[in-house]
C-alpha cells in the first residue's frame, strides 16, 4: 500500500489541526485514508472524494436606493458541480424590497433540494 501513489491528497478542515490526508483505493475499489489523526478525517475524505459540496454566498441585484446588492446564500452546502450555474442564476436575479432575512429567492435549485435565500433584511425604499 505504501508504495502506491495516492489517488488524491487533501487537507482535512474538520478542525484547526489541518491533517494532510492521502487517499488510496485497493483492488476492490475500497477507499482508504492515511494521515488522519482522528476518525473525522475519514468522514471528511469520503465526502470530499465522492460528493464534494460547498455553501455558496454571493449577491443579487437589489432594486433599492439604500443598497444596490443584496447578500444571499445557499441554505445548505451545494454539490460542487452546480456552483457555477447557481452563481449565474443569482447574478441574473433582481430582488425587489422589502426582503426578509431567510426569504427564499430560488427554490430547489436544479433539483438539488438546496434553496437560495436572502442573508439580510432589506426594507422598501421610503
Amino acid at each position: 500500500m505504501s508504495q502506491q501513489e495516492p489517488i488524491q491528497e487533501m487537507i482535512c478542515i474538520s478542525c484547526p489541526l489541518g491533517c494532510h490526508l492521502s487517499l488510496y483505493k485497493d483492488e476492490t475499489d475500497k477507499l482508504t485514508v492515511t494521515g488522519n489523526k482522528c476518525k473525522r478525517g475519514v468522514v471528511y475524505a469520503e465526502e470530499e472524494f465522492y460528493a464534494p459540496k460547498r455553501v455558496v454566498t454571493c449577491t443579487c441585484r437589489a432594486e433599492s436606493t439604500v443598497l444596490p446588492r443584496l447578500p444571499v446564500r445557499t441554505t445548505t452546502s451545494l454539490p460542487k458541480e452546480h456552483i457555477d450555474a447557481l452563481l449565474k442564476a443569482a447574478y441574473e436575479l433582481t430582488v425587489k424590497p422589502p426582503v426578509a432575512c431567510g426569504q427564499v429567492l430560488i427554490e430547489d435549485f436544479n433539483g438539488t433540494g438546496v434553496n437560495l435565500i436572502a442573508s439580510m433584511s432589506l426594507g422598501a425604499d421610503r
Partner: protein
Amino acid sequence: MKELHYDVLVIGAGAGGLAAAAEVAKHDATCALVERESHLGGILIQCIHNGFGLEEYKEELTGPEFAERLAVEVRNSAVDVYTDTTVTQLETDTDDGLKIAYCFSAVYGVIRISARAVVLAMGCRERNRGNIRTPGTRPAGVYTAGLAQRLVNIEGYIPGKDVVIVGSGDIGLIMARRMTWVGATVHAVIEIQPYPSGLTRNIVQCLNDFDIPLYLSHVVSRIEGRDRVEKVRVSPLDNGIPDEDNSFDIPCDTLLLSVGLVPENELSKEAGVDINPQTNGALVDSTMMTSVDGVFSCGNVLHVHDLADWVAEEARRTGRYAVQYLRNKRPNRQVRIKAGANVRYINPTMFDPDNPDKLYFRSLIVKNQAKLHLKLDHNPVKEVKMSHIQPSEMLHVNLKPKDVASWNIMKDSVLEVSVE
C-alpha cells in the same frame, strides 16, 4: 448643542459594540450606542461569506445574518442608537468623573453625551501599501482586500479582472474566492511568512478549490504600470532579503493587500488610554478596564480576533463589567499576567483571583501536541495540552475558581503564560 446623559456610552456598533450595548441594557443600565455608519453591524455587513455564529448562536451564519441578530437584540432593548454619528473627542479628566463625548451627525447635529462609563468598540482598519513599503510606480488598481470586499459585496463594483493578492490573511483568502466567483482570475497569493496567516479552512476552500497558487516566503518586490497596474514582481526571500535572481513577473491589473489590521485607537489615545505595543490595543485589567478609570475596551480595537463570535463573547463580558463598575463592584485584588516563552501577547493582562475568567492569547510558534504552562511566581500551577498551535489561530484558556483556589497568591504575584 444637544446634551444627553447615560450610564454607559458604547462607541462603535460592530460585533463588539452591539454585544456590549445589549449586555449593558440587559443589566438595567441606560446605554447610548454611537455608530458613524448608517447601518448597524460594522464590517460584518460586507463579510457575506459563511462561518460566523457557530459559538454565539450554535449555527453557521453569514456576516450580515450574524449582524442582524445582534442588531435585533439591540433594537429590542432599551439601548438608544445613534447611527450616522461620529465621536470626534472623548474627555475623561473631568472633576466629577463623568466622561464626555462630542459627537457630530448629519442627522442629530452636534451632541454632547456624558456617561459614567465608556466602552470603546471602534474595531480596526487595514494596513495598506505604505505600511509594507512596496516599491514601484503608483498606478490605479491597488486596493486593500477589505475595500475590494466592500466594492464587490455592497457597492456592486468589480475592481479588476486579473488579480494578485498580497498576504494570506483571512480577508485576502476570502477575497480570492469572491473575486473568482465574480468572474475574475486570481493568479497568486503571496505570503511573506513561511506559513499561511489565515485559517486552514480558508486555505482549502478559497485557494485549493480554485487551484490558486500560494507562494510562501515570497514578497511582491515591485509594482509596475503607468496608469493601471500592469504587472507585479514576485521575489522569494533568501534569509529575509528578496532574491532578485529568482524573481518573476505576474501580469495583472489589480493588487489586493491583506497585510494585517491596526486597532483604531486615535480616540482612546486622546482620552489618555495606555496602549499595549504588542497588540496596538489598550492595556486592560481583569475587567477589561483600560488605564483610564471607567473606560473599557473590547473587540478588535483591543486586539485583532480571528472570529466575530469571540469578539461578541468578549464584548458581552465587557458590558457586564461596565455595569458592575457603575455599581461599585470592583475586584478586591488583581494579579498581573505576563506573556512568557513563545507567547506574543495575552489579554487581559490581569486576572481577579476571586472571579477568574477567560484569557485570550497568541502563540509565536507552529506546533502539534503543544503544552500551555501557567506559572505563578515561577512555580508551575496549571498545564493544558493543546493539539495544535500556530500564530494565526488565537488561543484561549479558562481560569476556573477551583484552579485558583489552591494558588498561593501574594500581593505582587505574577502569572506567566508560556507554550512549548
